[in-house]
Protein backbone atom coordinates (compact mmCIF):
# COMPACT_ATOMS: atom_id res chain seq x y z
CA UNK A 1 0.00 0.00 0.00
CA UNK A 2 1.24 3.50 -0.70
CA UNK A 3 1.94 5.37 2.45
CA UNK A 4 2.56 2.34 4.61
CA UNK A 5 5.87 1.57 2.94
CA UNK A 6 7.34 4.75 4.39
CA UNK A 7 5.83 4.21 7.81
CA UNK A 8 8.66 4.16 10.34
CA UNK A 9 6.58 2.27 12.89
CA UNK A 10 5.58 -0.39 10.44
CA UNK A 11 4.97 -3.52 12.45
CA UNK A 12 4.11 -1.74 15.69
CA UNK A 13 1.44 -3.50 17.77
CA UNK A 14 -2.12 -2.13 17.56
CA UNK A 15 -4.24 -0.80 20.43
CA UNK A 16 -3.13 0.73 23.70
CA UNK A 17 0.38 -0.61 23.41
CA UNK A 18 0.64 0.94 19.96
CA UNK A 19 -0.62 4.27 21.24
CA UNK A 20 2.01 4.31 23.95
CA UNK A 21 4.58 3.51 21.31
CA UNK A 22 3.33 6.47 19.29
CA UNK A 23 3.65 8.83 22.24
CA UNK A 24 7.13 7.45 22.76
CA UNK A 25 7.80 8.20 19.11
CA UNK A 26 7.16 11.90 19.82
CA UNK A 27 10.72 12.24 20.97
CA UNK A 28 11.85 11.45 17.45
CA UNK A 29 12.39 14.19 14.94
CA UNK A 30 10.08 12.72 12.29
CA UNK A 31 7.25 12.70 14.80
CA UNK A 32 7.84 16.29 15.82
CA UNK A 33 7.91 17.25 12.13
CA UNK A 34 4.65 15.38 11.59
CA UNK A 35 3.07 17.30 14.45
CA UNK A 36 4.31 20.61 13.04
CA UNK A 37 3.13 19.68 9.54
CA UNK A 38 -0.28 18.75 10.93
CA UNK A 39 -0.53 22.01 12.82
CA UNK A 40 0.50 24.15 9.83
CA UNK A 41 -1.85 22.24 7.53
CA UNK A 42 -4.72 22.80 9.99
CA UNK A 43 -4.14 26.54 10.08
CA UNK A 44 -3.96 26.79 6.27
CA UNK A 45 -6.95 24.58 5.55
CA UNK A 46 -8.93 26.05 8.44
CA UNK A 47 -8.66 29.61 7.14
CA UNK A 48 -8.72 29.09 3.39
CA UNK A 49 -11.18 26.19 3.64
CA UNK A 50 -13.77 28.60 5.03
CA UNK A 51 -13.40 30.80 1.93
CA UNK A 52 -13.48 27.75 -0.34
CA UNK A 53 -16.70 26.45 1.23
CA UNK A 54 -18.46 29.80 1.65
CA UNK A 55 -17.53 31.08 -1.81
CA UNK A 56 -18.31 27.64 -3.29
CA UNK A 57 -15.02 27.17 -5.11
CA UNK A 58 -14.43 23.58 -4.00
CA UNK A 59 -13.92 22.30 -7.52
CA UNK A 60 -11.62 25.13 -8.51
CA UNK A 61 -9.53 24.03 -5.54
CA UNK A 62 -9.67 20.42 -6.74
CA UNK A 63 -8.48 21.57 -10.16
CA UNK A 64 -5.59 23.54 -8.67
CA UNK A 65 -4.56 20.56 -6.53
CA UNK A 66 -4.49 18.15 -9.45
CA UNK A 67 -2.77 20.58 -11.79
CA UNK A 68 -0.01 20.76 -9.17
CA UNK A 69 0.98 17.24 -10.20
CA UNK A 70 2.52 18.76 -13.33
CA UNK A 71 4.82 20.74 -11.05
CA UNK A 72 5.77 17.68 -9.05
CA UNK A 73 6.74 15.97 -12.33
CA UNK A 74 8.69 19.06 -13.42
CA UNK A 75 10.51 19.02 -10.09
CA UNK A 76 11.66 15.44 -10.68
CA UNK A 77 12.60 16.22 -14.27
CA UNK A 78 14.70 19.26 -13.36
CA UNK A 79 16.10 17.62 -10.26
CA UNK A 80 14.69 20.28 -7.92
CA UNK A 81 12.38 19.86 -4.93
CA UNK A 82 9.05 18.65 -6.36
CA UNK A 83 7.24 20.86 -3.81
CA UNK A 84 8.77 23.95 -5.44
CA UNK A 85 7.44 22.72 -8.79
CA UNK A 86 4.04 22.13 -7.22
CA UNK A 87 4.05 25.69 -5.85
CA UNK A 88 4.72 27.10 -9.34
CA UNK A 89 2.10 24.95 -11.02
CA UNK A 90 -0.64 25.48 -8.47
CA UNK A 91 -0.14 29.26 -8.53
CA UNK A 92 -0.13 29.27 -12.34
CA UNK A 93 -3.23 27.10 -12.60
CA UNK A 94 -5.08 29.14 -9.98
CA UNK A 95 -4.41 32.38 -11.83
CA UNK A 96 -5.08 30.58 -15.12
CA UNK A 97 -8.56 29.60 -13.97
CA UNK A 98 -9.15 33.16 -12.78
CA UNK A 99 -8.04 34.75 -16.05
CA UNK A 100 -9.90 32.26 -18.24
CA UNK A 101 -13.17 32.69 -16.36
CA UNK A 102 -13.03 36.48 -16.18
CA UNK A 103 -11.51 37.36 -19.55
CA UNK A 104 -12.90 34.70 -21.91
CA UNK A 105 -16.29 33.17 -22.46
CA UNK A 106 -15.15 29.73 -21.33
CA UNK A 107 -17.21 28.55 -18.34
CA UNK A 108 -15.47 28.05 -15.00
CA UNK A 109 -16.02 24.30 -14.83
CA UNK A 110 -14.65 23.86 -18.35
CA UNK A 111 -11.54 25.85 -17.41
CA UNK A 112 -11.14 23.66 -14.32
CA UNK A 113 -11.43 20.52 -16.42
CA UNK A 114 -8.80 21.72 -18.90
CA UNK A 115 -6.20 22.76 -16.31
CA UNK A 116 -6.87 19.70 -14.13
CA UNK A 117 -6.23 17.25 -16.98
CA UNK A 118 -3.39 19.14 -18.67
CA UNK A 119 -1.57 19.56 -15.36
CA UNK A 120 -1.77 15.86 -14.56
CA UNK A 121 -0.78 14.84 -18.10
CA UNK A 122 2.29 17.08 -17.92
CA UNK A 123 3.21 15.46 -14.63
CA UNK A 124 2.99 11.98 -16.14
CA UNK A 125 5.13 13.00 -19.14
CA UNK A 126 7.78 14.71 -16.99
CA UNK A 127 8.06 11.70 -14.71
CA UNK A 128 8.28 9.39 -17.72
CA UNK A 129 11.10 11.53 -19.16
CA UNK A 130 13.01 11.56 -15.88
CA UNK A 131 15.66 8.87 -15.94
CA UNK A 132 15.50 6.34 -13.14
CA UNK A 133 12.98 6.03 -10.35
CA UNK A 134 10.85 8.84 -8.88
CA UNK A 135 11.23 8.44 -5.13
CA UNK A 136 8.43 9.57 -2.76
CA UNK A 137 5.98 9.90 -5.66
CA UNK A 138 3.34 8.00 -3.68
CA UNK A 139 3.88 10.39 -0.80
CA UNK A 140 2.98 13.39 -2.96
CA UNK A 141 -0.06 11.63 -4.39
CA UNK A 142 -1.48 10.13 -1.22
CA UNK A 143 0.33 12.00 1.53
CA UNK A 144 3.03 10.98 3.97
CA UNK A 145 2.95 13.26 6.97
CA UNK A 146 5.59 11.15 8.71
CA UNK A 147 8.31 11.79 6.18
CA UNK A 148 8.02 15.57 5.77
CA UNK A 149 11.59 16.90 5.85
CA UNK A 150 12.41 19.90 8.02
CA UNK A 151 13.16 22.09 4.98
CA UNK A 152 9.60 21.58 3.77
CA UNK A 153 8.26 22.45 7.22
CA UNK A 154 10.04 25.79 6.90
CA UNK A 155 8.46 26.37 3.48
CA UNK A 156 5.04 25.42 4.88
CA UNK A 157 5.53 27.87 7.74
CA UNK A 158 6.32 30.71 5.32
CA UNK A 159 3.25 29.94 3.20
CA UNK A 160 1.00 29.77 6.27
CA UNK A 161 2.32 33.14 7.48
CA UNK A 162 1.54 34.65 4.06
CA UNK A 163 -2.00 33.23 4.25
CA UNK A 164 -2.53 34.58 7.77
CA UNK A 165 -1.18 37.98 6.74
CA UNK A 166 -3.50 38.30 3.75
CA UNK A 167 -6.51 37.11 5.74
CA UNK A 168 -5.95 39.51 8.61
CA UNK A 169 -5.34 42.46 6.29
CA UNK A 170 -8.27 41.80 3.97
CA UNK A 171 -10.83 40.17 6.26
CA UNK A 172 -13.51 42.82 5.69
CA UNK A 173 -12.90 42.83 1.94
CA UNK A 174 -13.26 39.06 1.63
CA UNK A 175 -16.43 39.08 3.71
CA UNK A 176 -17.95 41.37 1.05
CA UNK A 177 -16.50 39.43 -1.90
CA UNK A 178 -17.85 36.13 -0.53
CA UNK A 179 -21.22 37.54 0.46
CA UNK A 180 -22.14 39.73 -2.48
CA UNK A 181 -19.63 40.34 -5.26
CA UNK A 182 -22.01 42.66 -7.08
CA UNK A 183 -22.23 44.97 -4.09
CA UNK A 184 -18.44 44.97 -3.84
CA UNK A 185 -18.19 46.14 -7.43
CA UNK A 186 -20.82 48.80 -6.83
CA UNK A 187 -18.87 50.35 -3.95
CA UNK A 188 -15.71 50.37 -6.01
CA UNK A 189 -13.87 47.39 -4.56
CA UNK A 190 -11.20 45.73 -6.75
CA UNK A 191 -13.29 42.56 -6.74
CA UNK A 192 -11.46 40.81 -9.56
CA UNK A 193 -8.00 41.36 -8.06
CA UNK A 194 -9.23 40.10 -4.70
CA UNK A 195 -10.65 37.01 -6.39
CA UNK A 196 -7.30 36.30 -8.08
CA UNK A 197 -5.56 36.72 -4.74
CA UNK A 198 -7.99 34.25 -3.20
CA UNK A 199 -7.13 31.73 -5.92
CA UNK A 200 -3.44 32.29 -5.13
CA UNK A 201 -4.15 31.64 -1.44
CA UNK A 202 -5.89 28.40 -2.39
CA UNK A 203 -2.81 27.46 -4.44
CA UNK A 204 -0.54 28.07 -1.43
CA UNK A 205 -2.84 26.01 0.78
CA UNK A 206 -2.76 23.15 -1.70
CA UNK A 207 1.04 23.12 -1.44
CA UNK A 208 0.88 23.12 2.36
CA UNK A 209 -1.58 20.21 2.35
CA UNK A 210 0.08 18.04 -0.31
CA UNK A 211 2.50 16.43 2.11
CA UNK A 212 -0.15 15.77 4.73
CA UNK A 213 -2.92 14.06 2.76
CA UNK A 214 -1.54 14.03 -0.78
CA UNK A 215 -2.70 16.08 -3.75
CA UNK A 216 -5.54 13.71 -4.60
CA UNK A 217 -7.07 14.10 -1.14
CA UNK A 218 -6.30 17.80 -0.57
CA UNK A 219 -9.90 18.68 -1.26
CA UNK A 220 -10.97 16.79 1.87
CA UNK A 221 -9.00 19.03 4.23
CA UNK A 222 -10.21 22.12 2.35
CA UNK A 223 -13.85 21.20 2.89
CA UNK A 224 -14.37 18.92 5.93
CA UNK A 225 -13.16 21.21 8.72
CA UNK A 226 -14.98 24.27 7.31
CA UNK A 227 -18.19 22.31 6.70
CA UNK A 228 -18.00 21.02 10.26
CA UNK A 229 -17.34 24.48 11.71
CA UNK A 230 -20.26 26.00 9.81
CA UNK A 231 -22.73 24.07 11.94
CA UNK A 232 -21.63 25.77 15.12
CA UNK A 233 -21.40 29.45 14.25
CA UNK A 234 -22.60 32.16 11.92
CA UNK A 235 -19.57 34.35 12.36
CA UNK A 236 -16.83 33.97 9.78
CA UNK A 237 -13.99 34.61 12.24
CA UNK A 238 -15.26 32.00 14.69
CA UNK A 239 -15.83 29.67 11.77
CA UNK A 240 -12.16 29.98 10.82
CA UNK A 241 -10.93 29.37 14.36
CA UNK A 242 -13.20 26.34 14.79
CA UNK A 243 -12.20 25.07 11.39
CA UNK A 244 -8.49 25.21 12.33
CA UNK A 245 -9.35 23.28 15.48
CA UNK A 246 -11.29 20.62 13.58
CA UNK A 247 -8.51 20.38 10.99
CA UNK A 248 -6.06 19.63 13.75
CA UNK A 249 -8.45 17.11 15.31
CA UNK A 250 -8.85 15.34 11.98
CA UNK A 251 -5.13 15.18 11.12
CA UNK A 252 -4.01 14.09 14.57
CA UNK A 253 -6.93 11.73 15.13
CA UNK A 254 -6.42 10.23 11.70
CA UNK A 255 -2.70 9.89 12.27
CA UNK A 256 -3.34 8.10 15.56
CA UNK A 257 -5.87 5.77 13.91
CA UNK A 258 -3.51 5.02 11.05
CA UNK A 259 -0.98 4.03 13.69
CA UNK A 260 -3.16 1.68 15.71
CA UNK A 261 -4.91 0.23 12.65
CA UNK A 262 -1.74 0.16 10.52
CA UNK A 263 -3.34 1.95 7.60
CA UNK A 264 -1.89 4.63 5.27
CA UNK A 265 -1.91 7.96 7.11
CA UNK A 266 -3.26 10.32 4.40
CA UNK A 267 -6.29 8.21 3.56
CA UNK A 268 -7.00 7.46 7.23
CA UNK A 269 -6.98 11.18 8.05
CA UNK A 270 -9.53 11.76 5.29
CA UNK A 271 -11.74 8.83 6.31
CA UNK A 272 -11.65 9.79 9.96
CA UNK A 273 -12.57 13.39 9.10
CA UNK A 274 -15.38 12.22 6.84
CA UNK A 275 -16.75 9.97 9.56
CA UNK A 276 -16.74 12.70 12.23
CA UNK A 277 -18.30 15.17 9.79
CA UNK A 278 -21.04 12.73 8.79
CA UNK A 279 -21.82 11.96 12.44
CA UNK A 280 -21.97 15.65 13.32
CA UNK A 281 -24.18 16.50 10.32
CA UNK A 282 -26.51 13.63 11.20
CA UNK A 283 -26.67 14.72 14.81
CA UNK A 284 -27.47 18.35 14.02
CA UNK A 285 -30.16 17.24 11.55
CA UNK A 286 -31.72 15.09 14.24
CA UNK A 287 -31.66 18.03 16.62
CA UNK A 288 -33.38 20.39 14.18
CA UNK A 289 -36.06 17.77 13.61
CA UNK A 290 -36.65 17.36 17.32
CA UNK A 291 -36.72 21.12 17.66
CA UNK A 292 -39.32 21.40 14.91
CA UNK A 293 -41.40 18.58 16.37
CA UNK A 294 -41.39 20.36 19.73
CA UNK A 295 -42.46 23.58 18.05
CA UNK A 296 -45.31 21.81 16.25
CA UNK A 297 -46.54 20.10 19.44
Amino acid sequence: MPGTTDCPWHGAPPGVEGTLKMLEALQYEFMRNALMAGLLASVACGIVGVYVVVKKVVFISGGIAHAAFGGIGLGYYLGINPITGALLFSLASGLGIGVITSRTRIAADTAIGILWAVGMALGVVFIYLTPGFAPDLMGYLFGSILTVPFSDIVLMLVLVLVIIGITVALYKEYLIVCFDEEYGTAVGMPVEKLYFLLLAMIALTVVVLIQVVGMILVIALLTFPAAMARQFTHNMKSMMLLSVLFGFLFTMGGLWLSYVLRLPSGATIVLFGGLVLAASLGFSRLRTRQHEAKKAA
Partner: protein
Amino acid sequence: MNAPALVELKDIRVNYGEVPALEDVSLTVYEHDFLGIIGPNGGGKSTLLKVVLGLVKPERGSVSVFGRPPEQARNRVGYVSQRSFFDRDFPASVWDVVLMGRYSSAGIVRRYGDRDKHQAEKALAMVGMLEQRNKQIGMLSGGEQQRVFVARALCAGPGLLLLDEPTASIDSTMQTEFYELLEELKYSLTIVMVSHDIGAVSVYVDKIACLNRRMYYHGSREITPDILEATYKCPVQLIAHGTVPHRVLKEH
Protein backbone atom coordinates in the same frame (compact mmCIF):
# COMPACT_ATOMS: atom_id res chain seq x y z
CA MET B 1 -36.82 77.82 -5.63
CA ASN B 2 -34.85 74.91 -7.03
CA ALA B 3 -32.93 72.75 -4.61
CA PRO B 4 -29.30 72.06 -5.59
CA ALA B 5 -28.77 69.40 -8.27
CA LEU B 6 -27.10 66.25 -6.90
CA VAL B 7 -26.93 64.31 -10.14
CA GLU B 8 -26.55 65.82 -13.58
CA LEU B 9 -26.47 63.61 -16.65
CA LYS B 10 -26.15 65.33 -20.04
CA ASP B 11 -26.63 63.61 -23.40
CA ILE B 12 -25.45 60.24 -22.13
CA ARG B 13 -24.79 57.49 -24.61
CA VAL B 14 -23.86 53.97 -23.54
CA ASN B 15 -23.29 51.06 -25.91
CA TYR B 16 -23.14 47.40 -25.00
CA GLY B 17 -21.15 46.09 -27.93
CA GLU B 18 -23.07 47.18 -31.01
CA VAL B 19 -26.32 47.70 -29.17
CA PRO B 20 -27.05 51.10 -27.67
CA ALA B 21 -28.32 50.81 -24.09
CA LEU B 22 -28.80 54.53 -23.52
CA GLU B 23 -29.10 57.27 -26.13
CA ASP B 24 -29.11 61.02 -25.52
CA VAL B 25 -30.26 60.62 -21.95
CA SER B 26 -30.27 63.72 -19.82
CA LEU B 27 -31.46 63.73 -16.25
CA THR B 28 -31.15 66.03 -13.28
CA VAL B 29 -31.88 64.89 -9.75
CA TYR B 30 -32.33 67.63 -7.17
CA GLU B 31 -31.83 67.38 -3.46
CA HIS B 32 -34.82 65.76 -1.69
CA ASP B 33 -36.25 64.38 -4.91
CA PHE B 34 -37.90 60.99 -4.74
CA LEU B 35 -37.57 59.93 -8.36
CA GLY B 36 -38.99 56.75 -9.83
CA ILE B 37 -37.52 55.47 -13.08
CA ILE B 38 -39.83 53.12 -14.94
CA GLY B 39 -39.54 51.40 -18.27
CA PRO B 40 -39.48 47.96 -19.85
CA ASN B 41 -36.89 45.30 -19.09
CA GLY B 42 -33.72 45.95 -21.03
CA GLY B 43 -34.65 49.62 -21.30
CA GLY B 44 -31.43 50.72 -19.64
CA LYS B 45 -32.74 51.43 -16.13
CA SER B 46 -30.03 49.52 -14.31
CA THR B 47 -27.41 50.85 -16.73
CA LEU B 48 -28.44 54.38 -15.83
CA LEU B 49 -27.85 53.66 -12.13
CA LYS B 50 -24.47 52.15 -13.00
CA VAL B 51 -23.54 55.34 -14.81
CA VAL B 52 -24.38 57.33 -11.68
CA LEU B 53 -22.27 54.89 -9.61
CA GLY B 54 -19.40 55.29 -12.06
CA LEU B 55 -19.40 51.59 -12.90
CA VAL B 56 -20.29 52.16 -16.55
CA LYS B 57 -18.46 54.81 -18.50
CA PRO B 58 -20.63 56.52 -21.09
CA GLU B 59 -19.20 56.90 -24.60
CA ARG B 60 -20.61 60.37 -24.80
CA GLY B 61 -22.05 62.95 -22.50
CA SER B 62 -21.15 64.20 -19.07
CA VAL B 63 -21.89 62.82 -15.62
CA SER B 64 -21.62 64.73 -12.41
CA VAL B 65 -22.60 63.47 -8.96
CA PHE B 66 -22.39 65.92 -6.08
CA GLY B 67 -20.50 68.12 -8.52
CA ARG B 68 -17.76 65.54 -9.03
CA PRO B 69 -16.95 62.64 -11.34
CA PRO B 70 -19.05 59.67 -10.15
CA GLU B 71 -16.10 57.55 -8.93
CA GLN B 72 -15.18 60.27 -6.47
CA ALA B 73 -18.71 60.61 -5.15
CA ARG B 74 -19.16 56.94 -4.24
CA ASN B 75 -18.84 57.44 -0.51
CA ARG B 76 -21.90 59.69 -0.62
CA VAL B 77 -24.04 57.34 -2.66
CA GLY B 78 -25.86 54.37 -1.15
CA TYR B 79 -26.85 51.50 -3.43
CA VAL B 80 -29.33 48.66 -3.02
CA SER B 81 -29.00 46.13 -5.81
CA GLN B 82 -31.74 44.33 -7.62
CA ARG B 83 -31.17 40.94 -6.17
CA SER B 84 -29.11 39.60 -3.40
CA PHE B 85 -28.64 35.94 -3.94
CA PHE B 86 -26.65 34.65 -1.10
CA ASP B 87 -26.49 31.41 0.75
CA ARG B 88 -28.98 31.32 3.64
CA ASP B 89 -26.27 29.65 5.68
CA PHE B 90 -23.76 32.42 4.99
CA PRO B 91 -21.75 33.11 8.15
CA ALA B 92 -22.59 36.78 8.61
CA SER B 93 -24.85 38.60 11.06
CA VAL B 94 -27.08 41.58 10.31
CA TRP B 95 -24.38 43.72 11.90
CA ASP B 96 -21.65 42.31 9.62
CA VAL B 97 -23.74 43.09 6.55
CA VAL B 98 -24.59 46.65 7.56
CA LEU B 99 -20.95 47.44 8.30
CA MET B 100 -20.14 46.50 4.68
CA GLY B 101 -21.78 49.81 3.81
CA ARG B 102 -18.87 51.57 5.48
CA TYR B 103 -16.34 50.05 3.11
CA SER B 104 -15.87 53.18 0.98
CA SER B 105 -15.45 55.35 4.05
CA ALA B 106 -13.06 53.01 5.83
CA GLY B 107 -11.00 52.19 2.74
CA ILE B 108 -9.17 49.05 1.70
CA VAL B 109 -7.22 47.12 4.40
CA ARG B 110 -8.27 49.62 7.11
CA ARG B 111 -10.51 48.31 9.87
CA TYR B 112 -13.92 49.72 10.72
CA GLY B 113 -13.56 52.33 13.45
CA ASP B 114 -15.91 53.74 16.08
CA ARG B 115 -17.38 56.22 13.62
CA ASP B 116 -18.21 53.39 11.21
CA LYS B 117 -19.90 51.43 13.99
CA HIS B 118 -21.82 54.48 15.11
CA GLN B 119 -23.12 55.09 11.58
CA ALA B 120 -24.08 51.44 11.19
CA GLU B 121 -26.03 51.58 14.44
CA LYS B 122 -27.83 54.71 13.33
CA ALA B 123 -28.73 53.20 9.97
CA LEU B 124 -30.08 50.01 11.57
CA ALA B 125 -32.21 52.09 13.91
CA MET B 126 -33.57 54.07 10.96
CA VAL B 127 -34.90 50.93 9.28
CA GLY B 128 -36.09 49.48 12.58
CA MET B 129 -33.71 46.54 12.62
CA LEU B 130 -31.37 47.46 15.47
CA GLU B 131 -32.72 44.79 17.79
CA GLN B 132 -32.00 42.06 15.26
CA ARG B 133 -28.37 43.05 14.76
CA ASN B 134 -26.95 39.76 16.05
CA LYS B 135 -29.17 37.52 13.97
CA GLN B 136 -27.76 35.60 11.05
CA ILE B 137 -28.73 37.46 7.88
CA GLY B 138 -30.10 34.36 6.14
CA MET B 139 -32.55 33.73 8.98
CA LEU B 140 -34.50 36.96 8.31
CA SER B 141 -37.52 37.20 6.04
CA GLY B 142 -37.11 38.68 2.57
CA GLY B 143 -38.60 42.01 3.64
CA GLU B 144 -36.36 42.24 6.70
CA GLN B 145 -33.32 41.43 4.59
CA GLN B 146 -34.21 44.22 2.21
CA ARG B 147 -34.42 46.60 5.19
CA VAL B 148 -30.94 45.53 6.21
CA PHE B 149 -29.67 46.17 2.69
CA VAL B 150 -31.20 49.64 2.79
CA ALA B 151 -29.46 50.19 6.13
CA ARG B 152 -26.22 49.06 4.53
CA ALA B 153 -26.73 51.67 1.82
CA LEU B 154 -27.74 54.33 4.35
CA CYS B 155 -24.77 53.91 6.63
CA ALA B 156 -22.39 54.97 3.91
CA GLY B 157 -23.75 58.34 5.08
CA PRO B 158 -25.19 59.05 1.67
CA GLY B 159 -27.11 62.03 0.55
CA LEU B 160 -28.30 59.90 -2.33
CA LEU B 161 -29.91 56.48 -2.24
CA LEU B 162 -30.10 54.40 -5.44
CA LEU B 163 -32.54 51.49 -5.41
CA ASP B 164 -32.60 48.96 -8.25
CA GLU B 165 -35.91 47.07 -8.26
CA PRO B 166 -35.87 46.93 -4.47
CA THR B 167 -39.13 45.02 -4.14
CA ALA B 168 -38.59 42.43 -6.86
CA SER B 169 -37.79 39.62 -4.45
CA ILE B 170 -40.25 40.26 -1.62
CA ASP B 171 -43.94 39.46 -1.25
CA SER B 172 -46.67 42.07 -1.60
CA THR B 173 -47.39 42.80 2.08
CA MET B 174 -43.69 43.30 2.65
CA GLN B 175 -43.62 45.57 -0.39
CA THR B 176 -46.15 47.96 1.10
CA GLU B 177 -44.20 48.02 4.32
CA PHE B 178 -41.03 48.68 2.38
CA TYR B 179 -42.53 51.61 0.47
CA GLU B 180 -43.73 53.06 3.76
CA LEU B 181 -40.14 52.93 5.00
CA LEU B 182 -39.08 54.88 1.91
CA GLU B 183 -41.81 57.44 2.60
CA GLU B 184 -40.17 58.13 5.96
CA LEU B 185 -36.67 58.18 4.55
CA LYS B 186 -37.45 60.61 1.76
CA TYR B 187 -37.54 63.55 4.17
CA SER B 188 -33.86 63.21 4.96
CA LEU B 189 -32.62 61.79 1.68
CA THR B 190 -32.67 61.99 -2.06
CA ILE B 191 -33.93 58.73 -3.53
CA VAL B 192 -33.77 57.35 -7.06
CA MET B 193 -35.70 54.11 -7.46
CA VAL B 194 -35.75 51.95 -10.56
CA SER B 195 -38.85 49.83 -10.82
CA HIS B 196 -41.17 48.05 -13.18
CA ASP B 197 -43.99 48.37 -10.66
CA ILE B 198 -45.75 51.35 -12.26
CA GLY B 199 -48.59 51.30 -9.78
CA ALA B 200 -46.40 51.51 -6.70
CA VAL B 201 -44.08 54.04 -8.26
CA SER B 202 -46.95 56.35 -9.11
CA VAL B 203 -48.24 56.20 -5.55
CA TYR B 204 -45.08 56.77 -3.61
CA VAL B 205 -42.62 58.77 -5.68
CA ASP B 206 -42.71 62.51 -6.34
CA LYS B 207 -41.22 62.52 -9.83
CA ILE B 208 -41.18 59.98 -12.60
CA ALA B 209 -38.83 59.32 -15.48
CA CYS B 210 -39.79 56.91 -18.26
CA LEU B 211 -36.80 55.25 -19.82
CA ASN B 212 -36.56 52.98 -22.79
CA ARG B 213 -33.13 53.60 -24.20
CA ARG B 214 -34.20 57.24 -24.53
CA MET B 215 -35.77 59.31 -21.86
CA TYR B 216 -39.44 59.65 -22.73
CA TYR B 217 -40.61 61.74 -19.89
CA HIS B 218 -39.19 63.35 -16.86
CA GLY B 219 -41.17 65.46 -14.51
CA SER B 220 -43.96 65.32 -12.00
CA ARG B 221 -45.60 62.02 -11.38
CA GLU B 222 -48.71 62.74 -13.38
CA ILE B 223 -48.02 60.67 -16.43
CA THR B 224 -50.43 60.01 -19.23
CA PRO B 225 -51.14 56.72 -20.97
CA ASP B 226 -49.60 58.21 -24.12
CA ILE B 227 -46.23 58.60 -22.47
CA LEU B 228 -46.38 55.11 -21.06
CA GLU B 229 -47.30 53.79 -24.45
CA ALA B 230 -44.39 55.61 -26.04
CA THR B 231 -42.04 54.23 -23.41
CA TYR B 232 -43.22 50.66 -23.53
CA LYS B 233 -44.03 50.66 -27.26
CA CYS B 234 -47.41 49.15 -26.50
CA PRO B 235 -50.55 50.17 -24.63
CA VAL B 236 -50.13 49.95 -20.90
CA GLN B 237 -53.02 49.71 -18.55
CA LEU B 238 -52.80 51.89 -15.53
CA ILE B 239 -53.93 49.95 -12.53
CA ALA B 240 -56.21 52.12 -10.46
CA HIS B 241 -55.51 52.09 -6.74
CA GLY B 242 -59.20 52.74 -6.04
CA THR B 243 -59.14 53.52 -2.34
CA VAL B 244 -55.67 54.95 -2.05
CA PRO B 245 -56.29 58.60 -1.27
CA HIS B 246 -53.15 60.01 -2.86
CA ARG B 247 -53.73 58.32 -6.19
CA VAL B 248 -52.36 60.74 -8.74
CA LEU B 249 -52.43 59.27 -12.21
CA LYS B 250 -54.82 61.36 -14.22
CA GLU B 251 -57.92 59.87 -15.72
CA HIS B 252 -58.12 60.23 -19.46
